[in-house]
């Protein structure tokens, strides 16, 4: 046994070193992340005018075109994908955390992790096969299906982690009052974990909002307002992609502006979602 003083000094040193390392990690990670955000902002902000936001594209070489159709398109595509995907993910996660320590739970978790590793282009080809080919038409619906398929495992796995963290004591307290289990889950467990579930769902929404590959063979893209769920629809990532790979300086400029806009859209979605949530609670860390 070391003398208490020497031991304490060593432990304090370890403490300082480890948190020092953590601080360095944070500095590195955040500086990289902020460089990326700053770079996009710098490239994109100057072209982000009201006209750019509110107009349709103009022919190549004519100034003043916009991407209003793609903003609407991305909101619709991602919105429907969230409507399709988030409930499946959250309710599936509910099963996993509340009843899932059996074979079904194992299979569901395993499949979610496998699905999560599938390249998004494969998901696009899948949606093309099951939605576009039978309907004989590229469509917004097909795009949303592809995005929802990408979202589901992300939402499921992150929601499960947060549901599991709801203390057993909370459940027991409610159950002890004679509340049926399903009501405990719906009224107590899910709301307690809602902040975490929201974080996970937002990450998933952010992720699919920026996806290009699954939309190429499904939502297809357009240079007009869309004409309903069964017709092709524009999306910001598709605009960014086709403009970024073009030879024209003006289109490159618009691609950066659209990328910057995508960040703002996600930012706005994030803020809106947080505003919708009730004031946070003690004990969930806020």
């Amino acid at each position: 046994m070391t003398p208490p003083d020497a031991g304490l000094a060593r432990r304090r040193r370890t403490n300082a070193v480890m948190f020092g390392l953590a601080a360095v990690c944070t500095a590195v990670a955040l500086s990289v992340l902020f460089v990326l955000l700053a770079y996009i902002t710098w490239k994109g902000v100057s072209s982000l005018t009201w006209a750019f936001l509110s107009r349709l594209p103009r022919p190549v070489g004519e100034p003043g075109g916009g991407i209003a159709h793609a903003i609407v398109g991305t909101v619709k595509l991602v919105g429907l994908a969230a409507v399709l995907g988030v409930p499946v993910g959250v309710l599936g996660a509910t099963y996993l955390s509340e009843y899932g320590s059996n074979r079904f739970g194992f299979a569901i978790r395993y499949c979610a992790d496998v699905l999560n590793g599938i390249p998004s282009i494969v998901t696009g080809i899948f949606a093309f096969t099951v939605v576009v080919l039978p309907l004989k038409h590229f469509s917004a619906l097909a795009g949303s299906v592809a995005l929802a398929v990408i979202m589901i495992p992300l939402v499921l796995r992150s929601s499960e982690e947060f549901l599991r963290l709801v203390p057993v004591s909370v459940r027991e307290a409610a159950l002890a009052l004679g509340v049926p289990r399903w009501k405990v889950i719906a009224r107590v467990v899910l709301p307690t974990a809602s902040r975490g579930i929201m974080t996970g769902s937002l990450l998933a929404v952010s992720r699919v909002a920026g996806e290009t590959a699954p939309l190429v063979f499904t939502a297809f893209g357009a240079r007009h307002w869309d004409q309903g769920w069964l017709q092709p629809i524009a999306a910001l990532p598709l605009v960014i992609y086709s403009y970024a790979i073009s030879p024209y300086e003006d289109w490159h400029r618009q691609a950066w502006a659209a990328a910057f806009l995508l960040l703002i859209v996600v930012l706005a979605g994030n803020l809106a979602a947080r505003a919708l949530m009730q004031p946070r609670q003690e004990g969930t860390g806020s």
Partner: protein
Amino acid sequence: MRMSPSVLALAGPRWGADDAFRRMTLAFGLVIVGLAVAMGGTMAVNSRLAWRAFGLPFIWTSTWDPVAEVFGAWPFIWGTLVSSALALSVAVPLGLGTAVFLAEVAPRRLSDAASFAIELLAAIPTVIMGLMGIFILVPLVRWAEPWLARTLGFLPFFRGAPYGVGMLTAGLLLAFIILPYIVSITREIMLTVPRSLREAALGLGATKWEVVRLVVFPYARSGVTGAVFLALGRALGETMAVTMVIGNTPKVSLSLLEPGYSMAAVLANEFAEASSDLYVHSLVAIGLVLFGITIVVNAIARLMIHRATVRAS
């Protein structure tokens, strides 16, 4: 957690509803199993010509010749595994360190702002990440490569001409793409560690780091593992950003400085232009192999966690 009065009002034995609820959530969970099976099935059907033509050696053959229609997946498998491993080995320590700092040390406001920025980052289209890779990362790596080759060139991992694009660049770019997943989920989980646990440990005279090591890490382990899995999945399947910096050369090399290729990248690069049926089926076969690899990687990871858990208890 304070109980809402409505919960009390709703009390009462309704066990039939309970069973229905369980079945309902199970049904939603099984949607995922259904999706995985449907995807695997679709890929199997749409790759059958490749398996008929090349058989299992497709997996370890290194030729990829679209003109002669001879296809093998090995260089792509290699590239996917190496770039993902590289990305994880950078992103996991970096992400954990960042999450510890944000959750344990940083003032709440800074922590929230940082995690907000990190979540935003997940929304950057990967084509933009790729562009930034080309404009920022590639020149940096090209500048660093001769130095790496000089100092670490005795290792087979750091040899070759300084192109700037290659496995190293792809791994680093991937690391930054998956970093948000690791940081934000880990931070969120660490923040949920009950205050009572921390205070108990601090009360026993533990330093803050010891609280992290002995209380926070064990408590958060399963959640952190989940986050790492999400990140790994993302790394394995990432397409656009990787293809823009990896060099797209289907060759197998130990050196991280050499250009490589990845499975998702070749699929995205060649699928739209593939003309013959065998060509298309071979590309889908690569997708199926990636599907299989994900299954195996997940099994290995599960086994490792299981072992760690057994040892810990």
